[in-house]
């Protein structure tokens, strides 16, 4: 019996000696990820995050498709025929609070930009001046994201209310349940970010059009100022870009082809796409086109009246395909096979038009600027730089790029809801609650400081 107890004891000890897999033994491997707190150590990391920010912007939930298409189908340029069932809701102004639209994407961009902006350069290794430039770029992107949120969710065209969107300037900051700032506050924050960005950036580092450049910041400022009718600011910002000599209006001969290639003389800032990195079938081309073999969602087609805004000699007719049942955009974002086209976000032509409009509003020589476009498009020159002419030229030039909806709203036009067969279902007078997206339900449920837009 003693023997047995002895052996039992040995066993007990030996099992005990199979001593612990300790807490450290249970550490998981981080193969694809790194901890946020420990991995921003040098200026190169900031640039890497900046690339991440641009990648997020090019997703289909943001500039890869949504923000451009949702605005286009609500404007008088296009509508959805529901070929794949997509964008009919927006085209018919029937949306409710169930879709997130760009809310989450834009704030994701802001969260990542804030990590760059709030990094303490003194603690980072590498070229600090370049670090400041990257921080400036992130600040500009943050302004763009806030501007996109404001124009989509703000109450500036709803006829009542002064609410904008929450301004977020910190990653994982103290207030995780922000309330909406007013339109004025958001606007001020955007201007302030753009000014800060311009002052921090150094154009010697601007060597690629797929990142926002110092001049791009001014171009963006002119866009924001035109949207809000801050004409002096718009004029001054646009003037810097127009007079920089860095860019030019693309010529008539090159206009259609310029969409095939990347980084043209007229491109100020564009989002990169390549054969291996693109929004694919959830991108812009697949939504506008149907290939000869039948592939393509092709939900979004031009309204027939679009043909009427161009003169026959206008080279911009070359981007339209009128051979099928519907008029299609096959010229902008043309690659519907490999989806390799970069997505231009800021073109020089827009800045010229911003400049022209600001000059017109402030009593300058708008006509010279305005006529730079028809002169390079095979169209007749304008006799006068009226608001109507400027808006017409903006529509002709910027069609399918997501500008028209804002242009219509800021000039108080009546909008039309169009059915899948192209018939007008309803006209919507300005202002209307439908001109601001609903705050997503998920946001409302998570954050009781959030106030919903009227009508939802």
């Amino acid at each position, binding site marked *: 019996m003693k023997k047995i107890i002895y052996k039992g004891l040995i066993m007990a000890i030996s*099992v005990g000696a*199979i001593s612990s897999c300790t807490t450290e033994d249970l550490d998981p491997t*981080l193969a694809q990820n790194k*901890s946020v707190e420990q991995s921003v150590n040098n200026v190169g990391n900031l640039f890497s995050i900046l690339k991440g920010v641009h990648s997020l912007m*090019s997703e289909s939930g943001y500039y890869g498709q949504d923000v451009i298409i949702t605005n286009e189908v609500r404007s008088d340029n296009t509508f959805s025929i529901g070929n794949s069932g997509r964008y009919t809701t927006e085209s018919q102004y029937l949306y409710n609070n169930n879709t997130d639209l760009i809310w989450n994407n834009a704030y994701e961009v802001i*969260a990542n930009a804030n990590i760059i902006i709030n990094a303490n350069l003194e603690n980072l290794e590498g070229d600090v001046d370049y670090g400041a430039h990257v921080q400036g770029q992130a600040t500009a992107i943050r302004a763009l994201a806030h501007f996109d949120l404001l124009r989509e969710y703000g109450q500036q065209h709803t006829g009542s209310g002064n609410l904008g969107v929450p301004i977020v300037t910190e990653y994982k900051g103290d207030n995780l349940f922000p309330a909406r700032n007013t339109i004025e506050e958001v606007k001020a924050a955007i201007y302030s970010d753009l000014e800060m960005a311009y002052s921090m950036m150094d154009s010697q580092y601007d060597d690629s059009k797929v990142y926002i450049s110092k001049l791009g910041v001014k171009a963006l400022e002119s866009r924001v100022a035109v949207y809000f009718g801050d004409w002096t600011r718009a004029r001054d910002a646009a003037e810097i870009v127009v007079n920089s000599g860095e860019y030019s209006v693309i010529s008539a001969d090159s206009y259609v082809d310029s969409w095939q290639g990347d980084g043209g003389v007229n491109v100020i800032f564009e989002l990169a796409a390549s054969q291996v990195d693109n929004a694919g079938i959830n991108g812009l081309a697949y939504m506008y086109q149907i290939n000869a073999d039948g592939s393509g969602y092709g939900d979004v087609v031009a309204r027939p009246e679009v043909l009427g805004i161009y003169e026959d000699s206008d080279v911009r007719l070359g981007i339209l395909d009128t051979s099928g049942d519907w008029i299609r955009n096959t010229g902008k974002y043309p690659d519907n096979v490999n989806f390799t086209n970069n997505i231009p976000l800021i073109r020089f032509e827009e800045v010229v038009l911003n400049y022209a409009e600001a000059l017109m509003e402030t009593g300058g020589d708008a006509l010279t600027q305005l006529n730079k476009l028809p002169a390079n498009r095979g169209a007749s020159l304008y006799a006068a730089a009226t608001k109507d002419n400027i808006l017409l030229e903006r529509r002709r030039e910027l069609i399918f790029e997501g500008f028209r909806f804002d242009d219509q709203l800021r000039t108080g036009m009546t909008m039309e809801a169009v059915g899948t067969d192209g018939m007008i279902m309803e006209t919507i007078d300005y202002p209307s609650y439908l001109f601001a997206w609903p705050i997503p339900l998920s946001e409302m449920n*998570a954050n*009781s400081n959030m106030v919903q837009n009227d009508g939802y």
Partner: protein
Amino acid sequence: MKKSLQGLLTLLLVLVVQIGFAQEKTVTGTVLDEDGLPLPGVNVIEQGTSNGTQTDFDGNYSISVAPGDVLVFSYVGFQQQTITVGSSNVYNVSLLVDAAALDEVVVTGYVTQKKSDITGSLVEVSEEKLTEYAAASVDQALQGNVAGLAVSASSGTPGSVANIRIRGISSITAGNEPLYVIDGVPVNNGNASASAATSSISALAAIDQSTIESITVLKDASATAQYGARGANGVILITTKGGKYGTTRFNFTSQVGFQNDAIEQPTPLTNAQRIVLASEAYVNDGFFATEAEAEDFLVNNSALFAQWDQAGRPESNWQQVLRNPDALFQQYSLSASGGGEDNRFFASIGYLEQEATVIGSSFERISGSLNFSKDFSPSLKFSSNNTASYSFQDAFLELSAYFDSPRTATYFMNPLRQPYNEDGTPAEIGGALPNPLISTRDNFNENRFTRIISGNSLDWEIGGGFSAGAKFNVDLQLYNYRTYTNRNYGYGVPTSGDASQYDRTNAFYVFQNYLNYDFEINADHRFDVKVLQEYQASRSYFLGGAGNNFADDGLFYLASAGTPTSVTSSFSDWYMGAYLGLLQYSAFDSRYVLNLSYRKEGNSRFAADNRWGDFYSVGAAWNLHKENFLADAGAIDYLKLRGSYGVTGNANIGLNNYQSLFTYGVDYNGEGAQAVSTFGNNDLSWEINKTFDVGLEFGFFQNALTGSIAYFNRDSEDLLLDVPLSQTTGFATQTQNIGELNNQGFEFQLTANIIDTEDVGLSIGGNLATVENEVTKLPLDPNGIERTITTTITRIETGHPVREYYMPTWAGVNPETGNDEWYVNGVDGETTTNFNDAEAVFQGGNSIPTITAGMNLNFNFKGFFINAQGYYAGGHKIYEGWHLYLHQTNGFPILAYNGYQSLLDRWQEPGDVARHSKFTSAGQPWQRHSKYLYDADFLRLRTVTVGYDLPSTAMEQIGMTSARIYVRGNNLATWVKDDNLLYDPEQDLGGETGLETPPTKAVLVGVNLTF
């Protein structure tokens, strides 16, 4: 890990320390049973030593001992006997049947227990029941056999994953799947697929059912707390077959039959119907004054209608074209088992092939297993259980409405397009949906899955009540996923063919070491103590790429791709370590039983400070039938009152959620980039389940009537919840330990053996379980407002079951206007035609059944037998998916896609009382409301088997032991409560009907031969 290996070595060293003892003389003898028949395989051991032997085929033994030594004779099912060696050299022994041992012995986890010693709630399902349902994976056979267990297949595609819920759901974000344990070792059995779009493939489908001896389902904490943090959702213990001492026995089983959809699927509209509806819609929209004018317009102006009209208005009947009627099912298995004096083995090979009920999808598995055990000495036993299988699944895009899927095309395909050319070849039709006849022929989407499980253990009977052992298990899963989209027709044309290929290697290792000590205090008090250490490592490596542009047909490996488009690889891992202590105490011949368990477990999913958790259980049982005051109650054979309480955990969340992380999975402009991907939460820890369970088990009238009643109450606390964040943070959710929910219910089980004679047997039985689920606590935001989690059809809110359906309430179609109306307040009274004005309200019930029941009948007469089993699930609801496109009176079903014939019941003129509103040619937005929410109650005849066992006398003449032939039906009849529900109510737990392959019914013929 190193330390565990050291541990193993230590253990082996200790074994080597064993030394022999002095031998004086050789004693021989024969061991017989009460009837005087020899007993082979009886253990004969010198008490207190490792000296021992076993009896041979004829019951003879021989052992060297010294006079005065004590020999112990032991054999399963017989009372142990001891003999003190005296002067004789021959000792013949007769062993008596142990009445107590007739108590069924059940595998209850790390131990096996007598039925009377079990304090928890568990159900054992026998091999016979498991083979009654023909499916690639064994979990489907549990449906209806275990009270409180609900199985729902995610798809009828063979090899797909089934969701199993035991006693409701305990978690909102973390997993609700039970833990699977094969031969004592926890394994991973989830979805192995690499694609979120194509058919799932269950790792469990890699295991051949015919190698499974039994399955035990553990339900309460007393049973599951030994599995600690993985026990919260119940545990499914799979025991594979082993060999038995004796001559080698062969067993051959085959089952062949065909399958069809279990219930008739919705019928699509015909072209003749569509033109009527489309014309009507145009008139309703005010485009034309009469339907004749509208029809005229359509056949002249709509290209497809015009073609169809000119062709003589043919029908296309895509549903029939894309169906695979009488889909084949065949399964064969051949096994051999036997054993010699110190070894036992079971070996098998199996083959299974199953087609889906849609074209282009099938499953095939070839498997083999070898379970071998060898007694190095009577006290040192080694066993090795090995199984390997290769499965092939011809999968398809079914997890959403993919236009390329034959299931999608059945309803979405515009029937104006014809499937065949005039010469009978598949037509290369245009439009958004390619012809699935071509894509299933020329494209592929394939899962290949190889799984090898090897479990090896060493058990040492030290003597004196001590035993020890070690176990090492490897589960290797090799997965390959390939796709190809052809270059001639369909989506692959623009890129001249697309191909991708992905490989995943999962390796799971489990080490276990244990020490056991049994002892008695004056025979009335028996103790069984076990300490165990367990370590599990899981590593997963993923590699794959895609490319396009192929020079010719028949090429689909990436080396031939002209343009590589993506390449990816990744690695992930998790680790678990645990210490377990078990104490079983039974007093006065198991009259009173107490079971205690304690487990300390660490998991790599949590930050270092929160990594370890403590789990325990207390269980007690009182075997009343052993009390003197009931000993004379002749009618009562078995009566046990048992109760348990315990704490289990759940850590089934994504890896590395506790850290705030950058992902480097983004890239921009051809360069690597980074972006934040996880919000992180260093406080993350275990989700806790506290379960109370009480039950009464009984057997009356010579056990002619047996059954049980149980009640359970499970509180889940510190829920691992993906708490919605304000998305202004850049994140949608953060995983937090917050929130509570409760499940409680009753379970009843009753079996009546009505007739039990040599020639005739009749028994009926059934089980019934209820479960009530309620969310009791959710996180609050800084204003004290509850952060509910709402989707378009469900909401999670306190006071309601998890994901109760929540949406506006449909008030019907207005007979005057023909418009859909909804209740403004969501309940009654004022109605509106503006959907956005209708308030969303709770609709009562979620997608989890609140009542489930199984019923069975077994009848046999002189070798003929009938077994039948039914299953009922009720109290839950199901939402119809895709109704915007297929089941609404808008332009989608009549102009773009197709819809169901139920749409014909639509409003046409004032005064019509119709289910569907008036048709419009326009599109509509998604509006989800109660019209498309259905009661999901159903009753299903799961299995009916009619067969005949050939008389053994006849069999012996042809050299066989037994033979059985049978005809079997699965899901032959189904009753569905809600007439408006067009789809099969047996759906995956997502709560929304989809376009996956529906459940099937089968008719099979089978043969079992033993020789």
